[in-house]
């Protein structure tokens, strides 16, 4: 059995990890009031997601449970919670940060691996098909300008995004 001090250190290690990353900075200000949960459209329709619970697990250091679980992927990114939090916890951003960490650890939902491939391959999430592109002139729409796929790839590789991809595969 862990001592109280050891438990506290486990909690701090994970919340410090989250707080040290872009988007996660405000997580430790949470005092668990539940304004987020009562503002959340997803929490109203499923017991599988509750923003207050996600933050609580982070503060308690339940790293594995948070990163391997379904909950962080069920946020609909509406930002209601973040807008209303009295402690200015940037909850939606904290959840992005948790997703960033989860992906690095290899927890990759299929749809996100599709998003990453589309981004690298086409420079956009939705590809414009040749058929649709040809129809533009029929509609009287101007030709599409070139997409900056090459600069995008350079930016992603400067950040280590490619390595992240390889880790997943």
């Amino acid at each position: 059995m862990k001592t109280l001090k050891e438990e506290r250190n486990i909690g701090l290690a994970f919340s410090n990890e989250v707080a040290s990353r872009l988007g996660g900075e405000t997580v430790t200000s949470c005092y668990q009031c539940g304004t987020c949960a009562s503002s959340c459209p997803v929490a109203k329709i499923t017991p599988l997601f509750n923003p207050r619970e996600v933050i609580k697990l982070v503060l308690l250091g339940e790293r594995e449970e948070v990163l391997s679980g379904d909950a962080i992927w069920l946020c609909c990114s509406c930002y209601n919670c973040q807008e209303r939090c009295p402690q200015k916890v940037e909850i939606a951003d904290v959840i992005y940060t948790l997703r960033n960490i989860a992906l690095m650890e290899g927890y990759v939902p299929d749809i996100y691996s599709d998003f990453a491939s589309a981004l690298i391959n086409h420079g956009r999430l939705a590809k414009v098909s040749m058929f649709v592109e040809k129809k533009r002139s029929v509609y009287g729409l101007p030709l599409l300008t070139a997409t900056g796929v090459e600069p995008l790839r350079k930016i992603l590789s400067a950040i280590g995004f490619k390595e992240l991809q390889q880790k997943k595969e």
Partner: protein
Amino acid sequence: MSSYALFLGCTIPARQPNYELSARKALARLGIELIDLPNMTCCAPPPVQSIDLEASLSVAAYNICLAEEADLNLITLCTGCFESLAMANAVLKADKHLKTKINNVLSHVGKEFEGSKEVKHYLQVLVEDVGLEQIKKTVSKSLSNLKVAAFYGCHALRPSELLRFDDPERPRILDDLIKVLGADSIDYRNKLKCCGGLLRGYSDDLALDLTREKLSNTSEAGADCIVTLCPFCFIALDIGQLQVRSKFNDVYEMPIVHYSELLSLALGTAPKELALEAHKIKIDKIISKIT
């Protein structure tokens, strides 16, 4: 005349010629010039932010750099593009440390974010550059028979501190823009609640629950159509309506209309010029009420 660099994004050219056509036609009529710059790329919306926040900020900043180089402010039609670009713009203008960090990344592609330009959603441009009075004067058709459910979606409004689009709890920009066309902007239950769009692909069941609720609430209030300002809300509610039908056997015939389509129709553009066949739920009912 004001000129903007158009950030077209991916979903609109890939799937919604109706949105692009109506927006280009209406903005041109109202004296807004759109310039299509080359080499724009993904705006880095929530799915990309979910993968890597630093990469998203860098990619968004790269796109803003292109507008800075052309000495133009950016205009978006898509709320997802608006959110990611406007948020990056605001964050990087305010945080020098982060700006330096992102500029280090951008140096690999020979760019430097200055923070000299604005990112605007086209509804803001309509209100701020054209003005409600001018729009009212230009309208040639009567929409007074239409009851419209304004739907703001999430990412134009929030996070409001960064986006500065409208009051996040009591927005009125879309309602005002609907009323100025002569239509009635009606109240309905949970007007500001999410359409569920971003859950599509991860949890279609939960996404459809939210879509269904939106359809139910707007129908109960007697809306003739839902007006959106985002291609994702459009998909969630338009195609989503067919999915709600097959999953729940719950039949709605609620036309989903982009604000720019409603505006174009009010300005007298012929429906056949607007690629309205892109709508899964046909909007003929609306058109027949415009006189």
